[in-house]
């Protein structure tokens, strides 16, 4: 986090010093700052920040794709007369156990069309999810998709 702030600061310094307060310039500043920090890292000490950034970018791309796909699927269902849904509430046993992990996971699940985080069990070991498309009534498969898809990536990202 500290490193990210540094990065932001550098980017801002860049925009101020160049006098161009545009987004493009800021982005340039950010990228520049990232690399500067990456190099300076040798001097000021290693941080997980540098490996996280590509990871975050990768995850964002993955998630965005999922988002679009899922949205389209729901959209199709919404605009066509027939309901194709096979909804159900399923329990997802969690590997995530810190507050941040669980929250991020739940939010991402919710944000994806077709799944909706309902509740967390009292011992925080199970997340109940409302899923719209449980293909072929295969609850296990749906469960696996979420665990293997989102949860794994989130945990990778955060740990």
């Amino acid at each position, binding site marked *: 986090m500290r490193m990210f702030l540094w990065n932001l600061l550098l980017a801002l310094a860049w925009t101020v010093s160049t006098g161009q307060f*545009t987004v493009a310039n800021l982005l340039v500043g950010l990228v520049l700052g990232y690399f500067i920090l990456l190099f300076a890292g040798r001097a000021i000490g290693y941080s997980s920040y540098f490996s996280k950034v590509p990871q975050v970018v990768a995850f964002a791309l993955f998630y965005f794709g999922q988002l679009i796909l899922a*949205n389209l699927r729901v959209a199709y269902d919404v605009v066509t007369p027939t309901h194709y849904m096979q*909804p159900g509430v399923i329990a997802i046993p969690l590997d995530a156990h810190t507050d941040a992990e669980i929250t991020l996971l739940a*939010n991402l699940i*919710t944000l994806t069309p077709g799944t909706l985080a309902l509740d967390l069990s009292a011992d925080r070991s199970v997340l109940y999810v409302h899923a719209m498309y449980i293909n072929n009534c295969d609850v296990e498969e749906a469960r696996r998709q979420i665990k293997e898809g989102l949860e794994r990536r989130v945990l990778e990202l955060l740990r």
Partner: protein
Amino acid sequence: MNDVVTAVLIVVGGAFMLLAGVGIVRMPDLFMRMQAATKAATLGAGCMLMAVAVHFGELTVVTRALLVTAFVFLTAPVAAHMIARAAYSVGTPLWKGTIADEFRCENDRVGQSAGETSTAQRANPAAREK
């Protein structure tokens, strides 16, 4: 170029919004309405905010557009979760086509039936809203 991107983003955003609107009207139970509505609208809002960012291009505008987008993406799922959880806990009925309810089995949900005419409806005035 900017204008084209803006136009596309605006139209796509609007389309998502409309989708959300249709979804919230058409889907058969609360949870699916939420599924259809909240997310599409969030995405739609995101698109439209991006359109603003692209269109104006000034730092102040872009930062704010990004901030709003971030905020919408942060709050929307939390809100959805809160509502869904509350609705579920008071026994808002599930669509009759629902194939599984693992939560109810384990937590002894107030209403014991998943059908539209569930006893939950009768047991829970908040859901029934007479």
